C-alpha cells in the first residue's frame, strides 16, 4: 500500500517542522517527505488541503476495560474510539479484573489488541500482585510479555517499604515506575476537592495534602532508589511546585495531567453532576490555573485522556456513589488544542504534549514523522468545531463533563503502520 498525503500542513515537533509538505508512505513506513521518490505510484492519494498532518497521538492512560469489565466497554469499541481520536499508541493501566499482573494476561491483551489492527497498545504492568501493595510482580517476566512500564493505576501503596522495594526492583532493570500521588488515609472516603463547593454540597472531601503528602514520600523514595518516576494525574498547585523543585534537584521525574483537570474545576460539579466525579477530584480555580501554566512551562510534560468509559447506570447515582471517570480518547486532541488556543501557544508546541512528550515518557519510538519510521499519523481539521454529544462519541462510555460543548479539532484520518484505520 502506497499513500501520498498532499497539500497538508505537516506539524512535527521533534523535527521542528511546521510547513505545507507532502508525505509519501510505502510498506507501512514514511518513505519520503517533500518531493515524491522516483517512480512512486500511490495506491491512494489523500488530499490534506487545509488540514494538519501530525504524528499519531500517544495517550498515556486509556482504560480498555479488558479483561473483566467488558460490560463497560470492549477492547474493540475503545480501540475504534481511540483511532477516531487520532491516537495511534496508547498505554493501558493495569486496573483490569484481574489486574495485569501476570505475563499470560498481558500476552493475551497484546494479542487481542494486535489482531484488531488499530492502535499500538502498551499495557502498564501491575507493580504489585493484584495491585494489593503486598508483593512485587514478576516485572522482568511481564516485560518479556510486553509491559514496558509499571504502576499501580489509582490503587494506593499503603506500605512505603513496598514502594521503596518496588522502585529498587524496577530500577534494577531500568523500568520506570508510574504512580498517582494520593495518600489513602487522607483521601479517606472523599469524593470532591476540600473547598467551597464540597462545603456547599456536603460532599466528603479529599484535601490537597492527600496529594502533597504522597508526593513527598514518592519523591524522597525516588531519590533513595534512583528509579525513573512518572507521576500520573497531578491536580494541585502545591503538587506542581513540589515536582518543579524535585526536578531542579536533578531527579528523573516526568509527569502528566488529564484533559479534564486542564479545563475544569470544582465549580463544574454544579448540582452534583456525576460526570465530574473524577479521581483525583476536580480542584480549585487556582489549581486549574497552575496546571495550565505548569504544562506550558514544561513542569508537566504531557497531557493524557485518562480515558475511563463508564456505563450509564453507574453514573445515574448520587454523586458519591457514581463510578469515577470520564470517557476521553476522542477528546484528547480537541481539549489539548483548546488549551493551546486559550493560552496562545504555537500549534507545534501544543501537539508536542500529546505526541513527542508522551512517547518519550513511555520510551517508545513514536510521536515523530522521520524518514523510515512507522507511518503513524493523525490528520485533522484545526478549524472545525464539533459538538460533544453521546451520538458523536464512538467509545462505549458516553460519560464526560464536556457533553454539549463545542470543541475545536476534528480528526479526518488516522493511519497506523501506513494503513488508514479511521476516516471521517
Amino acid at each position, binding site marked *: 500500500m502506497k499513500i501520498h498525503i498532499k497539500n497538508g500542513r505537516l506539524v512535527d515537533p521533534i523535527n521542528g517542522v511546521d510547513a505545507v509538505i507532502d508525505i509519501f508512505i510505502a510498506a507501512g513506513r514514511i518513505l519520503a517527505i517533500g518531493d515524491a521518490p522516483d517512480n512512486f505510484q500511490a495506491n491512494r492519494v489523500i488530499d490534506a488541503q487545509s488540514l494538519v498532518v501530525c504524528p499519531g497521538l500517544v495517550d498515556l492512560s486509556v482504560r480498555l476495560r479488558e479483561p473483566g469489565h467488558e460490560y463497560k466497554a470492549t477492547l474493540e469499541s475503545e480501540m475504534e474510539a481511540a483511532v477516531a481520536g487520532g491516537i495511534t499508541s496508547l498505554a493501558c493501566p493495569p486496573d483490569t479484573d484481574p489486574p495485569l499482573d501476570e505475563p499470560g494476561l498481558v500476552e493475551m491483551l497484546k494479542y487481542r489488541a494486535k489482531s484488531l489492527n488499530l492502535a499500538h497498545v502498551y499495557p502498564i504492568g501491575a507493580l504489585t500482585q493484584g495491585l494489593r501493595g503486598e508483593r512485587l510482580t514478576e516485572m522482568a517476566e511481564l516485560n518479556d510479555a510486553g509491559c514496558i512500564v509499571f504502576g499501580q493505576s489509582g490503587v494506593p501503596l499503603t506500605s512505603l517499604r513496598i514502594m521503596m522495594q518496588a522502585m529498587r526492583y524496577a530500577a534494577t532493570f531500568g523500568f520506570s515506575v508510574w504512580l498517582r500521588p494520593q495518600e489513602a488515609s487522607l483521601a479517606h472516603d472523599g469524593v470532591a476537592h476540600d473547598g467551597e463547593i464540597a*462545603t456547599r454540597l456536603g460532599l466528603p472531601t479529599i484535601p490537597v495534602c492527600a496529594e502533597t503528602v504522597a508526593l513527598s514520600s514518592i519523591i524522597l523514595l525516588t531519590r533513595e532508589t534512583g528509579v525513573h518516576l512518572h507521576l500520573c494525574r497531578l491536580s494541585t498547585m502545591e503538587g506542581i511546585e513540589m515536582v518543579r523543585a524535585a526536578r531542579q534537584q536533578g531527579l528523573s521525574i516526568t509527569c502528566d495531567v488529564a484533559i479534564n483537570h486542564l479545563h475544569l474545576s470544582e465549580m463544574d460539579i454544579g448540582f452534583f453532576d456525576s460526570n465530574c466525579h473524577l479521581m483525583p477530584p476536580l480542584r480549585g480555580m487556582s489549581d486549574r490555573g497552575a496546571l495550565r501554566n505548569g504544562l506550558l512551562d514544561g513542569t508537566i510534560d504531557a497531557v493524557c485522556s485518562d480515558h475511563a468509559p463508564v456505563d450509564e447506570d453507574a453514573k445515574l447515582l448520587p454523586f458519591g456513589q457514581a463510578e469515577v471517570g470520564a470517557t476521553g480518547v476522542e477528546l484528547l486532541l480537541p481539549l489539548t488544542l483548546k488549551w493551546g488556543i486559550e493560552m496562545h501557544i504555537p500549534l507545534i508546541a501544543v501537539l508536542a504534549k500529546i505526541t513527542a512528550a508522551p512517547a518519550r515518557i513511555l520510551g517508545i519510538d513514536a510521536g515523530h514523522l522521520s524518514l523510515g519510521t512507522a507511518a503513524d499519523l493523525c490528520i485533522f481539521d484545526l478549524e472545525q468545531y464539533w459538538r460533544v454529544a453521546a451520538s458523536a462519541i464512538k467509545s462505549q462510555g458516553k460519560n464526560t463533563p464536556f457533553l454539549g460543548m463545542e470543541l475545536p479539532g476534528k480528526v479526518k484520518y488516522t493511519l497506523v503502520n501506513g494503513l488508514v484505520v479511521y476516516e471521517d
Partner: protein
Amino acid sequence: MISRNPQLNRTGELQHLLTTEGLPATILLEILDTAESFVGVTERDVKKIPLLRGKSVFNLFFEPSTRTLTTFEIAAKRLSADVHNLNVAVSSQSKGETLLDTVNNLSAMDADMFVVRHLQSGAAHLIASHVQPDIHVINAGDGRHAHPTQALLDMFTIRRYKQDFRNLRVAIVGDILHSRVARSEIHALTTLGVPEVRVIAPKTLLPAKVERLGVHVYHDMVKGLKGVDVLMMLRLQNERMQGANLPSPEEYFKYYGLTQEKLSLAQPDAIVMHPGPLNRGVEIDSAVADGKQSVILSQVTFGIAVRMAVMSILAGN
C-alpha cells in the same frame, strides 16, 4: 446540563424543595406565611383539610428515621393525601435495585409527590432531575447536604419568637461538617436577612472555607455566644463522639455543650433550638433543654405546619 435552578419551574415557582440555597426570600416567606395558616388547623378538633385529596405522597426513606418520617406522614394526612411509607433501606435497595429504578416503579403507581431521605448528598437532586414534570420531590435530608424542611421550621420558630430576622445574631453550634441541618439553616438565615450568623465548633467539625457561606467562625463558646439572640444546637452523631473527630463526649460537653452558665452569655431573651433527637449531657444540658428559654418542643409542633405548607404549595404549582 442543568441551566436553571433545578427546584424552580419555568415561571420561577417552587417545583421541588431540595435545598434552601438559591431560593428567593419571597418563596421562603410564602412557605412561612402558609404555615401560619396551618398552625390553627393542628389545634382544631377535626385536623383535616382537603388540599391534597386524591393525591399520593410516597415517603421514600433510604435511611432510618422515625421523627421526620412521622411528621411528614402526619402533614400529608392532615392535607387528606394518600400516604405510603416505604422503608427502602430494607427492601428494594438490598435487592440491588437502583435508586432511579425504585423511583420509576413508584412513579408508575401514580405518585404525585416523593418525600426522600437518603444517606448520599445529591440523591434528591438526582431524583428530581429524572421524574416526570408533574411529580414533586421534597428533600427530607440528603447526606450532609440539605434538610430544607428542618431549616424552614426553624425559621418559622425564630419568627414566632423574634418577629424580625433583620436584627438578629444567630449562632449554630456543633458538628457543622457533617450536618445537613446546619447548611440549610445557614442558607435560610442569610437569605432572610439575618445580619450575623455564627458557627461555633472545633476545627475538626468545620468544613473548608465555611466562611464563604456567609458565616463568622468561632472555636470558643464563650466568645461565640456573646450577645446572641438565637442558639441552634446540632446533634452530635454517636459515631463521631470519639475517634478522629473528637476525643470523647465528655470533653465535647465541657467545651461545646450548652449549659445554663454558657447560655447566660447570650442575650437574656435568647431562645435555644435543637433539631432532635437530643443527646442530653453531650451537646446540651438537660436543665437547658427543658428550661424556659428552650423552644425545642415548639419546633416539633411547627414542623407539621411547615411541612403541610410545603406540600400544599408544591401541589398548587
